[in-house]
């Protein structure tokens, strides 16, 4: 059996004012390969302005149920240096195509400590799941306009990939439909 390379989780940002959101994973040999594969798989359509990838093994995750059953052990080494952690969380059971959203950063000596801080800091909504990622393990797509154009703009012009392009097909589209597909694409 041959290898499909390590697994990387992918975060996509749809517009500059939206948070990065976990959209799924890819297998890749290195971070740049992971970003490129993520772009081909998750940005075939609008919209995207930025993508992040991180090795799945570098993510510390806990669901609400896990935390209730087993509070996180906080034995972080006192000698370990403080480092920044990026925090993602899920807050809704609503039907969605994304999982956890970026909420911010904390500085801690271990992922466990980072989670504890995150739970104290981000309290506006109840969290159903947390992901804690060491900031230096995230690889980000180049933020320059040139890269954004070449990576994400082509999808915008390919309108034939959008269902709206075919909206006028047939006079009877709605006439016979008993239950229209609800795709959450309002």
């Amino acid at each position, binding site marked *: 059996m041959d290898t499909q390379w390590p697994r990387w989780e992918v975060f996509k940002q749809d517009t500059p004012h939206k948070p990065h959101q976990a959209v799924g994973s890819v297998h890749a040999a290195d971070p740049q390969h992971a970003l490129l594969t993520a772009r081909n*798989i998750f940005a075939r359509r609008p919209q995207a302005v930025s993508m992040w990838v991180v090795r799945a093994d570098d993510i510390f*995750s806990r*669901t609400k149920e896990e935390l209730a059953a087993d509070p996180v052990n906080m034995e972080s080494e006192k000698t370990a240096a403080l480092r920044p952690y990026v925090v993602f969380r899920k807050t809704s059971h609503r039907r969605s195509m994304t999982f956890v959203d970026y909420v911010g950063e904390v500085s801690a000596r271990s992922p466990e400590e980072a989670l504890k801080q995150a739970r104290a800091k981000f309290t506006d909504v109840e969290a159903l799941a947390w992901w804690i990622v060491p900031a230096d393990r995230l690889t980000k797509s180049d933020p320059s306009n040139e890269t954004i154009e070449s990576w994400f703009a082509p999808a915008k012009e390919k309108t034939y990939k959008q269902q709206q392009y075919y909206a006028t097909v047939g006079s*009877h589209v709605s006439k016979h439909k008993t239950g229209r597909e609800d795709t959450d694409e309002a």
Partner: protein
Amino acid sequence: MAVKYGIPTDPDYTERLAEFEARIQRGEKIEPGDWMPEEYRRQLIRMISQHAHSEVVGMLPEGAWITRAPTLKRKMILIAKVQDEAGHGQYLYHAAETLGVSREAMLEALLSGKAKYSSIFNYPTLTWADIGTIGWLVDGAAIKNQTMLAACSYGPYSRAMVRICAEETFHHKQGKEMVLLYAKGTPKQRQMAQDAINRWWWPALMMMGPHDADSPNTEILTRWGIKTKSNDTVRQEFINEHAPEILEAGLTLPDPDLRYDPQSGNWIHGPINWDEFWQVVKGNGPMNKERLAARRKAHQEGAWVREALEAYAAKQQKTALAV
């Protein structure tokens, strides 16, 4: 922390199962890390991996027509559609991986012939009209199923389905447009469209799987919120939408028993040939061997790319360490 997959002999199984089922009743999503019955996990891996394989094998019947598309526009649409199928396979493998099964193991199961995929892809695509018909009927049937699964209780599967449905609707519409144009076209085009409908209609109805009475998994899948509608219900929705549209286009359906029942509002279909269905499932369909051979060839011929990228990554890591 070890992921908890409960089995009935666990001392706390009954208690945890009750809480698990209550969560599903409340409309909560089960996420990786949460407790779940081992049987829930097993059923999901079976369904999701089968679904992923179907997307991957599903590229083959259509991919064969990319070079022969009649116009540049149709070629671009078809390329985008086949790219989507590849992406959908990736979304689904990802969802299955969250249950602790590796991509290597799933691909191995596909290439060895152990894993199943949708039987529909073991039928040949004989003319260009088949491409439109696949979009309209095969993707139409798939969307009905996928819309149902988008409501499922397992978070990663539900999210993959929501994403897939949004993209798949384009596949359905471009196919429908193509067939309707052929139905209004030259006598030869009409004949091609009719021939394609005749060949794909029954296999499309079989896509929803056996009748409810012959579908032993349905009860537990429904109880755990994996399936939210039965096979026959989804099949009926598909027929009710597509039969009148096809007839209105001036085409016919290859079912002499098909009739509209004003009382229920349903289009009632004649008997489905389940012998044919099981023959294809067992590997005796028209294209089973070709499909698997094509997958194996692609996998083998891609081996050097995987090796090269791995070597490149290893070299980069070494250089980074040396600096």
